[in-house]
């Protein structure tokens, strides 16, 4: 099973201090999966990006045997309409390209493996270890999955459900006392979802109504077999 190995000793550190076990616990190996109704709205780009769940690739979970063979979980994810993101050679065959080794691990001082994605790095300050998540890198990966047709584009019905959930959120905040600014922020987000633009653009248009209307972002190319 090809995973990149990143040792904490490789992390730039001002002192050679062993990482704290409290900060970096041993955890379970995983893969990422995407299910058709799991999408996140990106406030800055104004697009819905596929949500990626962590799926334990651990023996004893969901029929995974001691040797870690994942055939059972692959069929389980497929049965539920999900996409199981492979790693290594299988990931390259799936079309993940440069992202094929997205699962990495670090070793803590108890010689346990702490699995994480390639978008997580660790900074060591004194004897504390702080994770740093490359949010933009993870978003680029999510966008790549749609562009390459690995994940099918957002279904209009699911988009409606997501907008509906945001509408409920706006209503929930509006019902609260002294939450005008938060209600407005949630309303801006709702409008951005509906228009397919960034939240900043919606805010700008609201505050300067004479400025040109925000341009809708071009839609991502549809993959073969995409749902209209």
């Amino acid at each position, binding site marked *: 099973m090809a995973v990149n190995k990143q040792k904490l000793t490789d992390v730039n550190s001002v002192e050679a201090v062993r990482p704290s076990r409290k900060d970096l616990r041993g955890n379970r190996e995983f893969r990422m999966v995407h299910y058709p109704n799991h999408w996140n709205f990106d406030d800055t780009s104004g697009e819905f990006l596929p949500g990626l769940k962590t799926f*334990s690739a*651990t023996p004893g979970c*969901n029929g995974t045997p001691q040797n870690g063979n994942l055939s059972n979980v692959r069929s389980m994810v497929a049965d539920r309409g999900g996409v199981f993101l492979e790693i290594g050679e299988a990931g390259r065959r799936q079309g993940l390209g440069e992202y094929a080794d997205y699962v990495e691990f670090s070793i803590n001082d108890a010689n346990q493996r702490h699995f994480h994605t390639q978008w997580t790095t660790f900074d060591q300050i004194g004897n504390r270890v702080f994770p740093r998540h490359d949010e933009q890198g993870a978003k680029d990966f999510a966008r790549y999955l749609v562009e390459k047709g690995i994940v099918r584009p957002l279904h209009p019905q699911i988009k409606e459900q997501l907008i509906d959930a945001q509408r409920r959120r706006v209503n929930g905040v509006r019902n609260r006392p002294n939450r005008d600014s938060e209600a407005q922020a949630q309303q801006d987000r709702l409008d951005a979802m509906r228009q397919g633009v960034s939240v900043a653009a919606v805010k700008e248009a609201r505050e300067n109504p004479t400025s040109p209307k925000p341009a809708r972002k071009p839609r991502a190319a549809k993959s073969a077999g995409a749902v209209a």
Partner: protein
Amino acid sequence: MANTTYATDGAALRLAEVPTALLHLNLADRVDLSALCVDLGDAAGSGSSVGHVPTLTLTDNLSATAAEDTDIAATSISSGQVQLTVVRYSLVRKFSDLFAGTSGPGQAGPELIAADAANAISRTRSGLVAGLFGSASNDVGDSGVDLSVSNVYSAMYQLMNDGNSPRFACVLAPVQLTDFMEDMRGEAGPQQWIPASQAMLAAKGPGFSGEWNGIEFYTSPEVDTANAGADRQGCMFAQGAIGYREMSLNGIPGIAGISGIPAGLRAAIEFDRTGTAATSAYTVHYYPAFSVLEADRMVSITTDA
């Protein structure tokens, strides 16, 4: 004449340091989430490490026939199976004779550390349960946005829409629970007057964290991250969502020195002696299998970490 002081005579007449009466145990998760799952029995003597749970979906209605004497076709049933494969999990602690032999009253000796085996098994079980949350095909919450009361309602609605009946359990990462509490502080309308809403705002430890709207809340640090580490992936689920199977070791011949494991746990502690190295070890063996029995009985809650 000089005084007798600790500074001058302490090194010879006093110990360098002594442990206090209190052995302070640092924070550690001792939550066992398996109580929220269906116990599917003991794999010992079953004939296979792989158990399968047959599943059957019976949702068909009767159909009106075209005429009173129309011959109608049979409607097939929808069946499937869920696999549970028991695998080995172990933990070894090894002590030198010098460490074990010098252990005094109230000190952390081998017995005390061995007694933590039950907690280690609980943590393992909880980790395996939390490892299944990514199997939920339904999801609520927004990446990078704190868990809110609305998210909890959305999860509850999702389970209700799929035909589930309460009681529901909701397992969250500690940060998700505190985000939920933070959002509840501003809750308005009828919800704010329910005593359970006020009780949810009280400070809480790990494990069972209260009940609200027919939902039992639990926290566990075993809850995984999602979306490349930016979020946490909790889960709300109904009874019957997750099942587990274990294998007891009581009948295994040749396990020398097997010790009684706390009642109710299908596991074993085995003691080893390495005379040439003057060390003793104990190994905890545990054979679990956890699996989602029905994904529609669960909804993951993915919110900011």
